[in-house]
């Protein structure tokens, strides 16, 4: 496979994954912002911060109003908005159309057209914000369904999945980090599940959480769920497993002088989750552990870029 093609597919997939997370987060945020309660202390600030860089004042101004958050994260021309992500994903897809199935290309193309034609002001004035988000989420689901059902399990598939799961694990770490940051020093055991609910919803894990964990210390359960629960498709255990799987496939198909180094790096990263437990994570501290994983992922993706995508 052409190095440029692999690069395009990898990034296209990362952008689509990020776009999906933005949509999910926004729709959950909308629901949550209608609920006033003592535990949740919902604010847009920490969410907006995850997706875009804004100066402090602008951040406050945007976060103060749900509709402004939509304007910023959905239709802004740049700064990692949905519109920018989908546009970039499509640009990448266009550059490698012959490696995508017709169905995948059409799904991305349609997502692009429906995204750029979002009429946010009309939606806001008629109270249709959630419907817009749900419609876009449907598009995203169609993309994943078509991707899963039509793409041949070849090199393109491997690079796309690698991008998808690297992005996903980074997003999981970002959300978790934000939530733990705003956790003040009160006794963790006294914190209500509602504090964590939104994090779990954003990661589509609320239902699984309720089914798996009963009673006890929520923050402990959350750590288990997010890092170690391999049944949870957005957990670090799950996404790292997938990352390793696709990297191994890619290494098998491409003879590259960096292969041993990539293999080692991947193995070490995988071991960090596979051979740890709750106790050890707590001892290290959640923030520190997240920082370590993020830096490892960053290094790994850089190495992959140098090895497989360098074509200039």
């Amino acid at each position, binding site marked *: 496979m052409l190095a440029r093609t692999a690069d395009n597919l990898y990034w296209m997939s990362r952008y689509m994954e990020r776009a999906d997370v933005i949509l999910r987060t926004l729709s959950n945020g909308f629901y949550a912002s209608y609920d006033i309660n003592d535990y949740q202390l919902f604010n847009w600030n920490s969410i907006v911060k995850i997706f875009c860089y804004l100066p402090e004042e602008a951040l406050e101004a945007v976060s103060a109003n749900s509709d402004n958050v939509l304007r910023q994260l959905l239709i802004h021309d740049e700064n990692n908005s949905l519109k920018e992500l989908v546009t970039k994903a499509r640009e990448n897809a266009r*550059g490698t159309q012959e490696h995508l199935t017709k169905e995948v290309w059409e799904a991305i*193309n349609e997502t692009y*057209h429906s995204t750029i034609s979002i009429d946010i002001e009309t939606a806001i004035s008629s109270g249709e914000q959630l419907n817009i988000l749900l419609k876009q989420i449907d598009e995203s689901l169609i993309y994943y369904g078509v991707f899963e059902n039509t793409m041949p399990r070849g090199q393109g598939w491997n690079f796309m999945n690698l991008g998808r799961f690297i992005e996903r694990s980074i997003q999981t770490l970002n959300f978790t980090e934000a939530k733990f940051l705003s956790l003040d020093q009160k006794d963790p055991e006294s914190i209500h599940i509602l504090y964590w609910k939104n994090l779990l919803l954003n990661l589509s894990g609320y239902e699984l959480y309720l089914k798996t964990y009963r009673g006890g210390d929520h923050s402990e359960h959350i750590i288990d769920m997010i890092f170690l629960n391999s049944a949870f498709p957005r957990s670090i255990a799950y996404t790292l497993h997938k990352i390793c799987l696709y990297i191994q496939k890619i290494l098998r198909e*491409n003879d590259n002088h960096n292969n041993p180094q990539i293999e080692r790096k991947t193995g070490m990263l995988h071991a960090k989750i596979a051979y740890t437990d709750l106790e050890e994570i707590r001892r290290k501290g959640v923030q520190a552990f997240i920082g370590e994983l993020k830096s490892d992922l960053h290094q790994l993706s850089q190495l992959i870029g140098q090895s497989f995508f360098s074509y200039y």
Partner: protein
Amino acid sequence: MTHWSDAYLSEPSAYDEMHVEGGTVRVPYERVNEFLKKYTTGAFREKEKMAGNLFLNRGITFTVYSEKEGIERIFPFDIIPRIITASEWAVIEAGIKQRLKALNLFLKDIYHNRQILNDGVIPAALIASCPHYTRDVYGIRVPHDIYVHISGIDLIRDADGTFYVLEDNLRTPSGVSYMLENREITKRIFPDLIATSKVRSISDYPLLLHKVLSAVAPRDMNNPTVVLMTPGIYNSAYYEHTFLAKYMGIELVEGRDLVVQNDRVYMKSTSGLKQVDVIYRRVDDDFLDPLVFRPDSTLGVAGLLNVCRKGNVSIVNAVGNGVADDKAVYRYVPKMIEYYLNETPILKNVPTYSMENEEERAHVISNISKMVVKKTNESGGYGLLMGDKASDAEIAETITAISENPRNFIAQPIITLSTAPCFIDNKLQARHVDLRPYALCGPGGVEIVPGGLTRVALREGSKVVNSSQGGGSKDTWIVNDTSFTGSI
């Protein structure tokens, strides 16, 4: 009550594809005419809208450079098919085959022995002054002596319905994906009409193309590595490049994906360098190799031409073909056919006046309102003066330009292109059309899929069909003469 389609008015001076004078419907169009009657304008408009959405969602768009807003547009598509009968097609097919045979021989001759110049059939000065004559490929042998693998020869019909060759496109003709997609869209919007019309299939074009490309590989091997080289996503024909690469199952590369080492071309893959045998390039000669042509080109590959000279890669179409589709050389094509093949041309040329010949130039200038003046080295409808439509100032400007550099221009009498019925503004209206069939030339001979791209000048009265000048297209059906009996 009269039906909306009854209000069709064709231009009296032009050959109308559907109506004979007086409004009688020609036999091949009877079925279409009957079919139109089943629809109200509203229902027909819905079909049109559906076609537009299909194009957009499939990403079948092109780019117009002179427009600021957005870079992507749908190529306007008129949903009423254009019909050509099998007997008409037989003439076109034989004519194009003959023409391509002669043009290939001409290119081989011009880059080797130059017999045709020595024999005085074509003035040597005309070739020497042709901007696309490429000295750098002189003496390079190409596999099977094929230069024009892929061509799109533009045909028009005069007032009496005779087909003429308007232009030979022998470099990187585009539009074939529209020919194929138009058919797919028609199948979606008018399945019942197409099902009963027995239209000849065109769908194997990408496979035929792949066969031709593989056959001209320089190495004797079973599965040569064939790639399609595109200037990139900002090229107006980018959709077509992805379409063809996809349906041939080959890599779509850009110049930056290729590299020359040890007199060979390689593509940069995820597992290192991989040798390339055949490049179907959609990049113009000028940009192909910065070491030989434009040094500022970033679209090409440095050293590519040298690899070609060494015989380690085939470039399709061959470099230097522009000398054969130069608008001033065009008028000599009938002579080439006589010279190389000793045959009478099957398809006629449009009479063409040389601006270097004083008598002809004087004739053109005194009859300029009946002439179309073209720049010899431009295509896509750029640099065109229609004498009947141009302002006095534009005419004066062109005449000055001609006298400054006569070699740059040719003139032709304005031909009243034939018209075909189009659905425009909820009415059935006559618009001028041409026809570009796509011919493939491999070691086994010339193959032409039965069809082509009908281009439509959508503006009323306009005779410029180029997409860059607001033209659209139609699905083009080749239908057996025997299948015109019976009703829908």
